[in-house]
């Protein structure tokens, strides 16, 4: 089996789906000739032609707006927003248009598009490139929001996203693009869009994370086991809309304690939603309050201080210690 980085797995997923289904189109700024600023679409235009993999004008709202038109006519557009920090330009076309089209037309028209976008911090990018904005779309009915944490999931989830009949926001953490390799089958396979994955089993504490924070949480969990002999169960959420609360509750009923680790700011995002749902479904199984380890509710910082702002494994470990002490 091939070893792939996450960006190679994304490229491979697009390749497989372009080859399988003629209605799949891949487009965005610099995705054609250049193969994408991260090379996620490298080689695809040469293989599938300029009618199916192409460069667009520099216009995020136009890219998603045209993708909506194409999707309503039966195409499966995979549109790229070059950096998710630029998604505000396309907010109406995503949240106002794509997400609501099925509802507004009682199912006559739908927008089964995928919006792929690199996001996430820790890469010393210029300003406004690194925000974790998934919370905006957690609160948008009609959308799915998928965030893989590794190459295998990235390929399987992206294929599922392209085949899914709802609009999917597919967020690729930039720090994970090339930092790890894993075995990825060359052929097509799917990973379900709404099932969380238990990536480390444990009986003492449930840790919920997604994207790059899965790796930070795993590192802290190993340290916790080494220091205190306490076993954390780490859940990789994979999707923040919908949230697989069943997997979380099953784990919490076993461990009786939980903590959410999130790279996005603290308030009103996925972590807040997860904690609310744990309270609704499992409060009598809890030994103490569920906490969250997050950056503060401040604007994403300039590059020189982002590593202090984003939770690291030491901060996450302190969060574990606090949850266990309450």
């Amino acid at each position, binding site marked *: 089996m091939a070893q792939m980085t996450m960006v190679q797995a994304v490229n491979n997923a697009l390749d497989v789906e372009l080859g399988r289904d003629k209605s799949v*189109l891949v487009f965005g700024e610099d995705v054609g000739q250049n193969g994408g600023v991260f090379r996620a679409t490298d080689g695809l235009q040469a293989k599938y032609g300029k*009618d199916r993999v192409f460069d*667009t*004008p520099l*216009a995020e*709202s*136009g890219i*998603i*707006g*045209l*993708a*909506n*038109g*194409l*999707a*309503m*006519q*039966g*195409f499966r557009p995979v549109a790229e927003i070059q950096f998710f920090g630029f998604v505000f*330009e396309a907010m*109406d*076309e995503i949240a*106002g*248009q794509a997400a609501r*089209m*099925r*509802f*507004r*037309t*009682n*199912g*006559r*028209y*739908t927008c089964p598009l995928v919006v792929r976008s690199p996001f996430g911090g820790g890469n010393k990018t210029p300003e406004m490139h690194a925000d974790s904005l998934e919370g905006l779309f957690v609160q948008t*009915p*009609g959308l*799915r929001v998928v965030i893989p944490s590794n190459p295998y999931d990235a390929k399987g989830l992206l294929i599922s996203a392209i085949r*899914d*009949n*709802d609009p999917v926001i597919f967020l690729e953490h930039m720090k994970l693009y090339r930092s790890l390799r894993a075995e990825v089958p060359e052929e097509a396979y799917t990973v379900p869009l*709404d099932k969380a994955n238990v990536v480390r089993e444990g009986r003492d504490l449930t840790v919920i994370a997604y994207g790059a924070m899965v790796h930070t949480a795993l590192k802290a969990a190993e340290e916790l086991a080494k220091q205190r002999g306490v076993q954390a169960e780490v859940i990789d959420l994979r999707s923040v809309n*919908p*949230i697989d*609360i*069943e997997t979380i509750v099953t784990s919490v009923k076993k461990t009786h304690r939980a903590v959410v680790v999130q790279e996005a700011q603290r308030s009103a995002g996925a972590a807040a939603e997860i904690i609310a*749902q744990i309270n609704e479904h499992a409060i009598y199984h809890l030994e103490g309050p569920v906490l969250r380890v997050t950056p503060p509710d401040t604007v994403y910082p300039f590059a020189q201080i982002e590593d202090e702002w984003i939770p690291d494994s030491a901060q996450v470990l302190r969060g574990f210690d606090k949850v266990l002490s309450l």
Partner: protein
Amino acid sequence: MADTAMLRKPSDVTDDVLLNLYTEMVRLRVFDRRCVRLQRAGRIGTYPPLEGQEACQVASTLALRRQDFVVPTYRDYGAMMVHGVPMEHILMYWNGRAEGCEIPDDVNVFPIAVPIATQLPHAAGLAWAAKLRGIDQVALGFFGDGASSEGDFHEALNFAGVFQIPVIFFCENNQYAISVPFRRQTATQTIAEKAAAYGVRGVRVNGQDALEVYRAVRSAVEQAAAGGGPTLIEALTYRYGAHTTSDDPSKYRDPSEADAWRERDPIVQLRQSLVSWGLWDDEAETELLERLESEVTAAVARMEALGPPNPDHLFDCVYAELSPHLERQRRALRAELKDWEGTDQ
């Protein structure tokens, strides 16, 4: 601007088309005036009247072919009806009913765009889909003068120019974006001249002249279908009434302005021409009005015969399949709503 086109009977438009243009315009006016009365009586919700813009909506849509797309704004329900959306659906929509959003499967009309200019990239995308598939299909996206200030206007025209998309951008320049006059919307003299910036053909027509609108759109459809790319058409028109039934135009316009436009009313002008060409008379007019009043009355009756809205709809079309958490929320809402009856199946 003299409306001289009506003086001589045209040789390039059939009598059927001439009569269709007229009867559809009258249909919209009868419908529109009834809707304003229904709103005043509390029988429908807020409503945006179209009176004055009948030639723009009817002539542009009749110049399309059945397979072409109409991509409307909130004031283009007239064009939607001309292209095949049932009248009662339009009534239901303005009465806040989900059933009003339903568009028959064989009618190529898109849902009403509410924010401004968002429909223009859609129109370009729809037409692009046809081009990619090699299907002979054109999309016509309506917009107003205010929409030309939005980024989506620019992005849609730019895409259409770059990709030579078979799309028509049809501007009903009715001189006001709610209260803001055209002169405060743009420093250019026309909307049509903006087309040049995108390498797109720009045309300006008298939007009170149904034949002139019809010919301009027919020509744009022919060009698009032949691979000649997009056209921007600016039709000069005027909304006689308020922006919506919640608006009071006397706050921002002198009533004499509307009076002056009414002297060039598209329906009155075409009727005079039809009469002079021997295609219309008082008897036909009386019959038409009776038929249309009955049609609207029947549509209103169908709207008012709807039972209470079904709360299941809230959950039906949010996703392709209902997720477990939405299913739980649906059950919880059912428990809250004591009157939620007859919807268990």
